[in-house]
C-alpha cells in the first residue's frame, strides 16, 4: 500500500556556523493508512520539531514531507489549505491548546475555516455535538468554556477539534503525557477506536515507552535529531538492536497498571 505520509531526509537546523543545532538530521519515516507510528526519544531528541514540520508549522532546512503524493512545502497557499484538512494535531498541554476565551463549540469548529463549504449554524452545531459525543462528552458541552473541564476532558475536546475535518492523519505530540494514568488510558483507547473505525493514521510522539507498547504498530527511536532505530513495535521493544534503545527501555518505569495489549 502506498504510504500516506512520507518524510524524506528531513533536516532542521537552528543557528548558523559553529553554533548550529541540528534539531533534525536526515530523518526519514513513512506511515501507511491505519498505522500508528510511535516516535520516541528523550527531551531534545527532535520529536516535536518533526511534528511541527509535518504539520506545516515550521519549515525544514532540507528534505521533503510527502502527504498523499503531494510535497507539503511545494503547495500553493490555496492547495495547502485544502491539504490541511487531511491532517490535524493534538497538543501536549490541554490547558494551553484551547483558547480560554472561546466556547468549546467554537474551539472544535475552528478547523472548519479550512473548508468554505463547511456547514454553518444549526448544522454545524449538530456536527460539533455529535463529535463531542464521539469523544465521550455531551453535545450540550459546546456552550461551556474550557476552564469548566478537567485536563482529560479538555484533551477530549482537543481530539474532537482535530477530528472535525475528518483527517486521515492525526499527529499527537505528547498528547497523553500531561494526563494521569487512568485518563491517559482513556485517551489512548479513544485513539485506538478512531483508528479501528475510521482507518486514521497516527503519528504518536512520546517519551513514554509504556504508551508505545500500548498502542503503536511501529516505532521510531530518535536521539539528538537522528533516527537510531525503527521497526515493528513488538520487535523493537523486545529485541532492541541499538544500545540507545536498550538504555531508553531500561530507564523506563514499567507501566504495569496499563499492561501489555495483545497484538495481532
Amino acid at each position, binding site marked *: 500500500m502506498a504510504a500516506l505520509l512520507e518524510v524524506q531526509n528531513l533536516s532542521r537546523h537552528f543557528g548558523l556556523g559553529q553554533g548550529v543545532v541540528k534539531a533534525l538530521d536526515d530523518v526519514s519515516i513513512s506511515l501507511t493508512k491505519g498505522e500508528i507510528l510511535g516516535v520516541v526519544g528523550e527531551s531534545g531528541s527532535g520529536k516535536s520539531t518533526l511534528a511541527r514540520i509535518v504539520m506545516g508549522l515550521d519549515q525544514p532546512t532540507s528534505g521533503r514531507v510527502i502527504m498523499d503524493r503531494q510535497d507539503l512545502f511545494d503547495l500553493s497557499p490555496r492547495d495547502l489549505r485544502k491539504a490541511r484538512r487531511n491532517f490535524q*494535531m493534538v497538543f501536549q498541554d490541554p490547558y494551553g491548546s484551547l483558547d480560554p476565551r472561546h466556547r468549546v463549540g467554537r474551539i472544535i469548529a475552528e478547523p472548519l475555516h479550512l473548508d468554505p463549504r463547511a456547514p454553518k449554524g444549526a448544522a454545524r452545531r449538530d456536527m460539533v455535538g455529535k463529535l463531542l459525543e464521539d469523544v465521550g462528552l455531551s453535545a450540550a458541552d459546546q456552550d461551556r468554556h474550557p476552564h469548566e473541564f478537567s485536563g482529560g476532558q479538555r484533551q477530549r475536546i482537543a481530539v474532537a477539534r482535530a477530528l472535525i475535518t475528518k483527517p486521515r492523519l492525526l499527529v499527537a505530540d505528547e498528547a497523553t503525557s500531561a494526563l494521569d494514568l487512568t485518563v491517559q488510558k482513556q485517551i489512548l483507547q479513544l485513539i485506538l477506536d478512531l483508528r479501528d473505525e475510521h482507518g486514521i493514521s497516527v503519528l504518536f510522539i512520546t517519551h513514554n515507552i509504556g504508551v508505545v507498547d500500548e498502542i503503536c504498530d511501529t516505532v521510531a527511536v530518535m536521539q539528538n535529531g537522528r533516527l537510531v532505530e525503527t521497526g515493528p513495535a513488538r520487535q523493537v521493544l523486545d529485541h532492541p538492536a541499538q544500545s540507545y534503545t536498550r538504555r531508553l527501555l531500561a530507564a523506563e518505569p514499567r507501566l504495569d497498571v496499563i499492561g501489555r495489549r495483545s497484538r495481532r
Partner: protein
Amino acid sequence: MTRLPKSLIIGAIITAIMVGAALLSRVWTPADPTGMNIVARLKPPGAAGLFGTDQIGRDVLSIIMAGAWTSLGIAVVATVIGGGIGTLLGVTAAAKGGRLERLVMSFNGVLFAFPPILSAILLGALLGPGALTSIIAIGIFMVPVFARVTRAAAIQIWARDYINAARMAGKGDARITMEHVLPNISAQIIVQLAIQTGLGILSEAGLSFLGMGVSPPTPSWGRMLSESQTFLDAAPHLVLAPGLAIAITVLGLNLLGDGLRDLTDPRRGQNG
C-alpha cells in the same frame, strides 16, 4: 464569586464621581462657571458656594465640575486614540516579528523621547494652543506605552498552542490577532487604559498650567492652578480645589487600574 479588591471598589467609586460630575456639568452646575461677580470675589468656601469663589467671583465648584469635563474629555480621547494606535503597532509587531518588529520598536523609542510638554510646544507653534493640540500631544505620548505593553502581552499569547491550532486551521496573522490575541490581552489593555488616563489628566493639567492647553474661558484645572497661585495667601481654597481635584482623579484612576490588574491576575484564581 471572589471578593473584589478594595482598590478596585474605591477607585471605581472615585472615578464614577468624577465622571458623573463631568457629565452633570454639561446640563447643570450650581452657578454659571463663566459668570463673573466682582462683588463676591475671593469668598471662602461656605457662604458663597461650597468651594467659594475665585478672583473674579466665579463659583469654584462650578468651574471644577466644568473643568472635569475638559480634563477627563481630553485625557480619555487622547488615551483611547493613542492607546488604539499603540495597541495596533504592538500586536502587529508581535504577530510579524523580525524586521517589522524592530522597525516598530525603534519608531516607538523615537516617540517615547517626546514628553507631552515638548510635543505640545512643537504642536502649539503649528496649530496654536487648544484642546486639539493637547489631545495630539498627550496621544503621541500614549502610543509607545501601549505598543510596549501590548507587544509584550501578545508575544506571550503567540507562544500558546491554541495559536498553533488556529494556524493549522489556516488562519492568517490578522485573523489570529483579532480572534485569539486581542481577546486574551484585553484585560491588560483595560488596566493600561485606566492608568494611562490618569497620566493623561496630569499631562493635561500640566499643559494648561503652562498655557498650552485649552484657551480661556473654557474651564481647566491646570489653568485654575496657574491663575490662583498669586492668591495663595488670600484664598488658599482657590489652589486647593483644582489641586485636590487633579490628585483625587489621578488617584482614583490608578486605584481602578491596580484593582483591575489584581482582579485579572492569573495567580488570583482559576486557570484561564
